[in-house]
């Protein structure tokens, strides 16, 4: 019965969003919480039921669609509002509803004192609906609807505190940068429609291998255009700039949208459309290269940031890069696996950070924290688990997923790609533990006033932290047995990526269990080294980082200022467009368009002056004219 209720999974949050949105301000807070959390909770329960039903089906028929109504019917073009559930969608659906539910619960604590409580939950529910529409959509157009709607919700939630100029600016930036990506995505959809005459997933994906040759220009164009969309949504080079600024939004939002779900939409989309990438080796290569460059690039910036949420933001960008590396070497299941584990521990990290910020009355600067271990025991314990997970320490979730990506990179991408990945992993371990040590260990640098209010967060916040911590520990085991061949998640996703097998890029090295274990050990050692260095820098010898920064002043400033990317964009992209637009407005808009419009208006006015002479104001004259018209009409009908 679960699968027949599939449509309720996205619908319930929508209902919640409408209720909370329309009744915002009139409902008591408890009611708002009940609607907001309840709708997503119910939706999660149904999602679990659907998942159970899906598992009960034989693997090759695990694709269920449910049409709701015809959305657009115009000539050849046909689009249904239809949801589809297959293993890939199921994983995403569970992540979105599950993690989403926990974050909703967390929000009731974190946002408890917020004035616009109803508005917040309305947005959050709307986001959940949009994200579910994105992952469950059965055609490109509906997916695009979800895609745009999550962007909208992201914009609304980043700018949730719109009274703060920084938040409003950040929302705007996110929106504009995403538009660039969306533009690519949309063009990709157009190209797909032109090529296949349909936007249905089933039609397009089954026809793609027959219609397009491997390496054909069309396949490459489609793949790259779609990937442009993915870089925007998933904050990859060069469109990553919005994500760090997005941290202006409430922290649960950062956890849900800008870490666990929305930013992974790009990865999901690439995995969903893997057939185009497999048909176009160059595009696949682009994905891998962009992924690894982003991973390294963001990691270096993350090394020196001082804002707790910004470090996490760069870490997210970096981890998303890893996922694209996985996809880029043709190991889509590995990318999705990392997406899932990342959703757990990154959400946990953000929520933990939120708990810290909450405890410190809004303080986000790492250098004003320290020694919080004793004050926030639950937050500390769960945060440590998440940090270990992201650093890739056995047996936490991140270890499994990251190593699988690195192994696949070794296998199909070559040693160079692997090497870069390992360096990234080292940096990940370093900056994450830097974050951890600065926050929880060492001497307290908390201000007097904040110290005064210091408290552990309420149950509604620590509860989700604990559940996510458990998931961060055991999340990796869904892939057990981890060695090649037996991976359970891979097998579950197998039907989706079945066609990938014969098209996948040839392996550079033979897969061997021994090599795999060896690589695992190497990366584990690298992670531990990163942790050790962080310990050395920030606990054992706190003066060391400063000295190092003095010695390498140029490099430090370059990284600290995020490679000046924002400034470069500002002067080379934003300003020229802005100035050009101003020119256009002055020359073209004001003169030609306004002139034409006003001119037409003036002519009509003049004509009306003449026409109004016919209006006498006497009702009966009007009635007479009316009668004349009727008489003529009746006469025509009578004598026809």
């Amino acid at each position: 019965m679960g699968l027949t209720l599939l449509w309720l999974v996205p619908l319930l949050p929508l209902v919640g969003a409408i209720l909370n949105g329309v009744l915002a301000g009139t409902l008591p807070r408890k009611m708002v919480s009940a609607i907001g959390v309840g709708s997503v909770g119910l939706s999660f329960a149904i999602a679990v039921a659907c998942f159970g039903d899906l598992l009960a089906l034989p693997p090759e028929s695990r694709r269920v669609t449910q049409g709701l109504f015809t959305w657009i019917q115009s000539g050849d073009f046909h689009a249904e509002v239809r949801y589809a559930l297959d293993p890939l969608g199921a994983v995403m659906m569970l992540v979105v509803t599950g993690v989403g539910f926990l974050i909703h619960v967390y929000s009731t604590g974190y946002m408890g004192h917020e004035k616009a409580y109803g508005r917040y939950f309305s947005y959050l529910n709307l986001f959940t609906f949009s994200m579910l529409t994105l992952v469950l959509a059965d055609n490109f157009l509906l997916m695009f609807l979800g895609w745009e709607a999550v962007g909208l919700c992201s914009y609304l939630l980043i700018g949730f505190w719109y009274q703060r100029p920084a938040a409003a600016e950040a929302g705007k930036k996110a929106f504009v940068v995403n538009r660039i990506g969306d533009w690519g995505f949309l063009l990709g959809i157009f190209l797909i429609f032109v090529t296949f005459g349909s936007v249905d997933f089933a039609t397009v994906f089954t026809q793609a291998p027959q219609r397009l040759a491997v390496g054909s220009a069309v396949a490459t164009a489609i793949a790259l255009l779609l990937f442009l969309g993915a870089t925007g949504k998933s904050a990859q080079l060069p469109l990553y700039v919005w994500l760090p600024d997005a941290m202006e939004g409430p922290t649960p939002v950062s956890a849900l949208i800008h870490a666990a779900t929305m930013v992974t939409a790009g990865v999901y989309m690439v995995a969903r459309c893997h057939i185009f990438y497999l048909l176009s080796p160059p595009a696949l290569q682009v994905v891998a290269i962009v992924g690894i460059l982003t991973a390294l690039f963001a990691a270096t910036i993350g090394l020196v940031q001082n804002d707790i949420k910004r470090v996490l933001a760069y870490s997210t960008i970096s981890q998303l890069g890893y996922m694209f590396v996985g996809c880029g070497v043709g190991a889509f299941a590995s990318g999705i696996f990392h997406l899932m584990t990342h959703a757990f521990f990154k959400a946990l990290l953000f929520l933990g950070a939120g708990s810290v910020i909450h405890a410190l009355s809004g303080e986000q600067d790492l250098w004003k924290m320290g020694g919080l271990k004793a004050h926030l025991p639950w937050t500390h314990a769960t945060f440590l688990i998440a940090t270990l997970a992201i650093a890739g320490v056995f047996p936490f979730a991140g270890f499994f997923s990251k190593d699988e990506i690195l192994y696949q990179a070794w296998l199909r991408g070559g040693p160079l790609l692997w090497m870069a990945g390992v360096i990234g992993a080292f940096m990940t371990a370093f900056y994450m533990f830097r974050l951890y040590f600065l926050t929880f260990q060492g001497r307290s640098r908390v201000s007097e006033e904040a110290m005064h209010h210091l408290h552990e967060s309420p149950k509604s916040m620590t509860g989700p932290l604990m559940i996510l911590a458990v998931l961060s520990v055991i999340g990796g085991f869904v892939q057990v047995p981890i060695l090649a061949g037996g991976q359970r998640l891979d097998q579950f996703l197998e039907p989706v990526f079945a066609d990938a097998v014969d098209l996948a890029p040839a392996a550079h090295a033979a897969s061997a269990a021994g090599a795999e274990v060896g690589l695992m050990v190497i990366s584990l050692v690298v992670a531990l080294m990163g942790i050790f260095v962080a310990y050395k820098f920030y606990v054992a010898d706190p003066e060391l980082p400063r000295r190092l920064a003095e010695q390498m002043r140029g490099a430090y400033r370059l990284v600290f200022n995020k490679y000046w990317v924002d400034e470069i964009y500002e002067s080379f992209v934003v300003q020229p467009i802005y100035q050009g637009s101003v020119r256009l407005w002055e020359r073209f808009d004001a003169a030609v368009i306004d002139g034409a419009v006003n001119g037409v208006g003036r002519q009509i006015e003049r004509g009306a002056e003449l026409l109004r002479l016919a209006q006498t104001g006497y009702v009966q004259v009007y009635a007479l004219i009316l009668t004349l018209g009727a008489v003529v009409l009746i006469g025509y009908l009578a004598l026809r």
Partner: protein
Amino acid sequence: MGEAILFTLFSLSAVAFALGMVFRRNAVHCALHLVGVLLSLSGMFVLLHAQFIAAIQILVYAGAIMVLFLFVVMLLNVKGETPLLTPGAAKGFGFFFAFIAFVELLWIVVSQGGTEGEPAPVPALPPNFGSPAEIGKILYTTWLFPFEVTSILLMIAVVGAVVLAKRKFA
């Protein structure tokens, strides 16, 4: 034969009352003549097997709408007009157009009728044709949506009338 006699009676009284309504000077008399027309038509409705409509015609039209008219006439205390009709060319045009319209309607009635100048035969009808039950059945099934819309229209009219009547004019 009965129908023919009654039809003649009702149609004559309807037309006579209608003429009286249009050409009487006193507005109260005009309203009363209109009531006469309405009652005559109600009788014709009964002849046409529309008992429910006939009853509604009396209840709503004659009993409520026209009383409202009378009220307004009496409240405004409009004295007989001087002169009765619109002056000048408008009056002539009015009669002329109305005459043409009548000729056209006549033409349509005559030309659209049965074959070879013979009036179309009147069909036999089921016994409960026009009864409240039958009206109710199609009103609440086929015509449900218009019915609901009409109810909203009436509510709007009520609100509009109240607002207009209550407004204080400077």
